[in-house]
């Protein structure tokens, strides 16, 4: 009754009824892997909701930050849970983005006309990681403070503008009085606003271009209506995300700052390991060569290579991937139909190699703990990790390529037997005609 009244109110003024009707009827293709991006989206929702709450208890001053977060201890169940949910959503957020991206990569969803959304997705991953890192730094505990110092040292290694940028963020030399207030503004304002903007673009483009599908018909979207089918599914996706994150937050304590103590630039907990998504950069710093070259008399800090050049190259390759892929496949046509990963075995190989590189670097970020547990010298582990980074990635890539081409060969043999689906397609005269659709 009341919904009808409200609906009519807006319909009379804005004509929303027709828009909603069209939106409800819109067809979305369905596959379990299409929900990965939604998990990320709902993590962001959780982050915003819990984050707004946290802004009312957090004190961004250098002396007030640590006590204000410490106050959210176990004897304050609401504050404790909200902070735990916030941190857990952040780590699940980045994980969901990466798994979603892997799905896009291996099924070649980035092909024309979706290159723009691929790049926006990469930007979202970068922004999500930066937001995670800045948020991780806010409690000003000994562990995150150390991470922030390392981050500032990497920023300092930017050619020529490094000292300027560090001054800017710190309001002086490290650790400046304005460091935390600035990190706070960046964390609660700049980055989330950028994420929200890009997320809107990301999803707006999805609606505009229509989602890709596995059903092999390029001319129609095959799937389910938004309402009620997809609506119920997305509620389930939301519920599942919240359930998992809240249960994790309730049971496993993340970032127990009371055990690290407040940050003093001369104190550090041992072992010192960052949140998981920053691990690959920390690992890169550990494996980086101990070289300090001079370019035109200027020292090039050792952290410059693993801290900026390596992630820069990785990012450039991933951003350029749709064009590299198009060149390798000699295919610049429009594609709305996804391929099974095995359709291009070398793509599987490249993806597997990239993921392996990430895993090796992430593991390297705990090499001191491994050395302790395995009773081997750290130097030996560093050598092993360097070799794994250089050659292990290639080996895994080759094995994955061979594996994928075997799968493809088997698929080709059984391809003819796959089930056939008939769909009705509207023809130019307005009538319907039957069209066979072979599902992948």
């Amino acid at each position, binding site marked *: 009754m009341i919904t009808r009244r409200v609906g009519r109110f807006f319909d009379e003024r804005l004509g929303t009824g027709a828009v909603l009707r069209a939106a409800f009827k819109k067809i979305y293709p369905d596959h379990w892997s299409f929900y990965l991006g939604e998990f990320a989206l709902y993590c962001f929702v959780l982050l915003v909701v819990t984050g707004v709450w946290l802004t009312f208890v957090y004190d961004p001053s250098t002396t007030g930050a640590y006590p204000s977060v410490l106050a959210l201890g176990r004897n304050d169940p*609401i504050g404790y*849970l909200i902070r735990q949910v916030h941190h857990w959503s952040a780590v699940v957020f980045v994980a969901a983005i990466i798994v979603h991206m892997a799905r896009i990569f291996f099924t070649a969803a980035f092909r024309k006309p979706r290159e723009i959304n691929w790049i926006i997705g990469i930007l979202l991953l970068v922004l999500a990681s930066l937001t995670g890192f800045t948020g991780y730094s806010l409690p000003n505990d000994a562990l995150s403070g150390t991470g922030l110092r390392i981050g*500032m040292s990497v920023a300092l290694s930017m050619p020529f503008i490094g000292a300027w940028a560090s001054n800017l963020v710190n309001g*002086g030399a490290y650790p400046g009085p304005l460091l935390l207030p600035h990190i706070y503004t960046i964390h609660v304002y700049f980055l989330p606003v950028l994420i929200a903007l890009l997320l809107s673009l990301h999803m707006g483009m999805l609606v505009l271009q229509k989602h890709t599908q596995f059903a092999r018909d390029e001319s129609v979207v095959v799937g389910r209506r938004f309402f*009620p089918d997809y609506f119920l599914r997305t509620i389930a996706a939301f519920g599942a995300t919240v*359930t998992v994150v809240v249960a994790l937050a309730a049971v496993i304590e993340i970032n127990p700052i009371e055990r690290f103590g407040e940050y003093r630039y*001369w104190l*550090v907990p041992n072992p010192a390991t960052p949140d998981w998504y920053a691990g690959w950069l920390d690992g890169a710093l550990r494996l980086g060569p101990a070289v300090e070259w001079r370019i035109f008399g200027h020292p090039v800090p050792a*952290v410059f290579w693993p801290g900026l050049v390596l992630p820069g190259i990785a990012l450039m390759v991933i951003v350029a991937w749709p064009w590299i892929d198009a060149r390798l496949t000699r295919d610049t046509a429009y594609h709305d139909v996804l391929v099974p990963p095995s359709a291009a075995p070398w793509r599987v190989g490249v993806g597997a190699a990239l993921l392996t590189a990430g895993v090796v670097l992430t593991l390297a970020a705990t090499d001191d703990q491994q050395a302790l547990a395995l009773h081997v010298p750290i130097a030996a582990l560093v050598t092993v990790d360097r070799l794994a980074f250089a050659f292990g990635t290639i080996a895994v890539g080759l094995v994955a390529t061979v594996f994928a081409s075997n799968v493809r060969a088997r698929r080709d043999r059984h391809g003819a037997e796959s089930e056939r689906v008939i769909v009705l397609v509207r023809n130019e005269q307005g009538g319907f005609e039957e069209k066979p659709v072979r599902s992948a």
Partner: protein
Amino acid sequence: MNTTLLATAIVAALASAGAAAARADPAVVGLLAALAFAAITIWAGSAALALRAPDDCTEPRQRPAIAQPGNEPTLTRGGVFGRIWIFAIGAFGLATIVPIVSLGRRARVAVGTVWTAGARVVTEQGRPLRPDDIALGGVTTVFPEGHVGAQDAAALLIRVEDNAMLTNHAWAPRGNVAFSKICTHAGCPVAIYRHADYMLYCPCHQSQFSVLFGARPVAGPATRALPQLKLAIGPDGYLVARGDFSGPVGPDDWNRPA
């Protein structure tokens, strides 16, 4: 089934709120909340599956209508937007660099630290140290007197055998040798000392510095020795500094004379 699930969600949500208000253990509050959301998830998921709606509804796909040559929208039409506009926009963009650059200038970075000649070496608690206060193989964090916690001033005071130092022997009176505690790699505190091989370890990326060789890096990613603090024994018998560190403290940047 549906009613049971929704009832579960409602009861669990209320119970969670009640537990929170009663300051119950966060695990209880959280698991009740998770239960509420799990019930919603199962409700929505089973409702979606129960629809048995076909998943083969279709909707045509259209390619963007691309403008044909001669029909393209253009900014130069009617001479309103000439090429000069591009330069104008570029010039305005370039001009914004000045306010941006000015931001980072606000604060000047101090050169060096507050260590000065004659400054007494004190512990974190502010207690001055005599040459024999640190036992052989011992290590402690020190600051200049009156400046505990001062930026970049933290140093590690290590006690080695009287004649053990292989470099700058004169800077280490009675085996008291001090180095900057800030790693030259990425700025972590070099927190661990092992006397067996006179090695300093950085816990962040495992750089190792050899104390006897003036904290020269011998393993790990660091490239520069930890700057040394020249020590002496003051007239009152306490350890004092003979000046600032022997080099720039902390990680390098491109403009720093290293």
